């Protein structure tokens, strides 16, 4: 092979692998990305049932009901609008009424989120950043209330 052919074969192979990777990335982007919505956004936009979503807000006081087999229901609120959430499993240690929470799952036709993941903050002083932003949008956030921080499963 000449130098030119060798170079072409190298460029061809690189181009091929990159194209495959690009195709993989684009298809994965379509199927596996989850959007974050605040309760108010859900109230405004009415996402279709079966959509995978991540929602955040505060666990509404007095809304937590625990059933058999670790079933738990609660309401996530940003102060303006509410979203009922249902989950089966163990909620994080810092899951409490009146505290920030992030839940991920599918929306039912009735507008309940069937969550498969529930995240709470990982430190008493912190609040999930998404929750802070959602509360700010709803105008229910006082500066200095807590610092944005991370989440814990």
């Amino acid at each position: 092979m000449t130098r030119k052919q060798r170079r072409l074969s190298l460029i061809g192979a690189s181009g091929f692998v990159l194209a495959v990777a690009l195709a993989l990335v684009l298809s994965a982007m379509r199927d596996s990305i989850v959007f974050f919505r605040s309760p108010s956004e859900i109230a405004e936009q009415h996402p279709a049932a079966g959509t995978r979503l991540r929602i955040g807000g505060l666990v509404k006081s007095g809304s937590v009901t625990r059933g058999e087999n670790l079933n738990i229901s609660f309401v996530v609120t940003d102060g303006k609008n509410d979203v009922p959430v249902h989950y089966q499993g163990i909620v994080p240690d810092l899951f409490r009424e009146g505290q920030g929470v992030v839940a991920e799952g599918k929306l039912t036709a009735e507008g309940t989120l069937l969550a498969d993941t529930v995240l709470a903050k990982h430190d008493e002083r912190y609040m999930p950043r998404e929750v802070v932003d959602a509360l700010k949008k709803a105008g229910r956030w006082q500066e200095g209330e807590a610092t944005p921080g991370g989440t814990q499963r």
Partner: protein
Amino acid sequence: MIPELGHYALVLALALGLVQSVAPVIGARRRDGTLMRLANSTALMQFVFVALSFAALAACYVTSDFSVLTVYENSHSQMPLIYKFTSVWGNHEGSMLLWVLILALFGALVAAFGNNLPATLKALVLAVQSWIASAFYLFILLTSNPFLRLAPAPFEGRDLNPILQDPGLAIHPPLLYLGYVGFSIAFSFAIAALIEGRIDAAWARWVRPWTLTAWMFLTLGIAMGSYWAYYTLGWGGFWFWDPVENASLMPWLAGTALLHSAVVMEKRNALKIWTILLAILTFSLSLIGTFLVRSGVLTSVHSFANDPRRGIFILAILVLFIGGGLMLFAARASVLKQGGLFAPVSREGALVLNNLFLTTACLTVLTGTLYPLALEALTGAKITVGGPFFNLTFGPLMMALMFAIPFGPLLAWKRGDLLGAAQRLMAAFGVGLAAVAAVFALEGGNSVLAPFGVGLAFYVMAGALVDLVERTGLFRLPLATVRTRAAGLPRSAWGSAIAHFGIALSMLGIISAATWGAERIVEVKPSQTVSLSGYDLTFEGLRQSRGPNYSALVGTFTVRKGNSIIGVMQPSKRSFATRSMTTNEAALMIRGAGQLYLSLGDSNDDGSTAIRLYYKPMVMLIWLGAVVMMLGGALSLSDRRLRVGAPKPAAKSALAPAE
């Protein structure tokens, strides 16, 4: 007094760093040996002063000097001594000090052991190293001073984040930083070569041991972080595709590519420009990782309290070094002489393929990590890119790479014989196919991908053995000849075979734990028995216990297999009053290469408690594989060729300027 001394030592280190940033460059220009040699002393002294500064901070932590702000915020007088010490880097300021400590250490190592480097190259490498160090000294002194005082001094500290009160904190960050920061040496060598406009095979021989060292630590650091997350987060996951984890995976991928391309450069004097670019990119990814974790762009356990000024400062450092490095590369790369030629089917070709897959895989991880940040900055939309995305993109690329791995070592340099290699790999194909068939038969076709994944892993392991068998002539030659051949085989050949075996082990563990893991999340009452995967766990009850700075709720479970008791598992929940936080201490029981994993959930007043119980078959292989990879790297590092003080080629020593 001690904090002020520590602060002052850091300022002195900065002063030395500034001198070292300039003097050796001038020395290299004027061929002035005195100026160039100055860098040796300053590099060593920089390390001494940063070490003093670090020791001062450590002293503040160990003696619980709460008049120092970071100690007050991250320590507590009742913490065990080990955590008092590790909390030095359990916060932003201290962890940056650890970062520069390791940076200075690497600089000092080059100064001390780089005696066979050409004087100008060594001077320039140390200068570039010092540019990086000075930038980070400035960062610490201006935005993250760990020695700030509080007046009046509080009586008690606010405690270390309980999640970090774990032996993992003693191991994971230092290892990870040794890896991250170790790549700075490759970067400095690349920049120095670009400035000099000269690069040859010897350059790769100097760069490779440093890269290999960094790579080994990074491998172990990532594995340790994964294990820590696994046992501490309470739900048995070992990799979360969290941006912070990706931040450490990306330099690893690029660094692995660099290791392989440096081999081509060293052996065949080819791929020079690409190797230089990879060296720049690898450290750039380390810097991006530091930025992502330390700037507060991301939210995770790793991001401590944030200050926007810091983010901008690190971003500036990032732009300066990555942008500067790439611009220098663009301007000077054409000056470097083109390397040798090779056929696409050859050892070089295989290594190029390896680089292609690794860098592309790295690119997909980068895309998945940065896309949500970019989208939020541009449109305000918040998205999560999690496991599914990476499984669909990174996964297939890695599978393709795994398939190619055994071919590489069996192809000859310059012009390889693909068919011949495939024939010699017949045994490995056989092992792989047998594994696929066996898994299918055992499993009854529940999952399609997993048997092929297991087959692939076995094929790569068998391929690594085939490589050794071929090289030593085992089964073909008389045993005595095999022994001499095995003894004569370069350690790097053993090293690469072992490392390839290790990655396959990890892969096997990942597939097995992800596919055949079993879980039960239930509520149990005292003396109730829960069964999972042939194990019966009887809940004996909960009791309170006290630790040095926490109170704990401990559950006791008797584990039976069949009718015999095989042990007791005691998962607990620790409550830390100072931060009103609880942590989950999962109980682990090792069964072969698998593990039983038990963690506590909420408990009720009647003495019942929720539990998470997992059985994870072969899960230990994930981390064992990483240790094997590291051992392969260590063996390769001990190769005579790479050892410090190895005899240098005659031509080079003749050219080295007289000192």
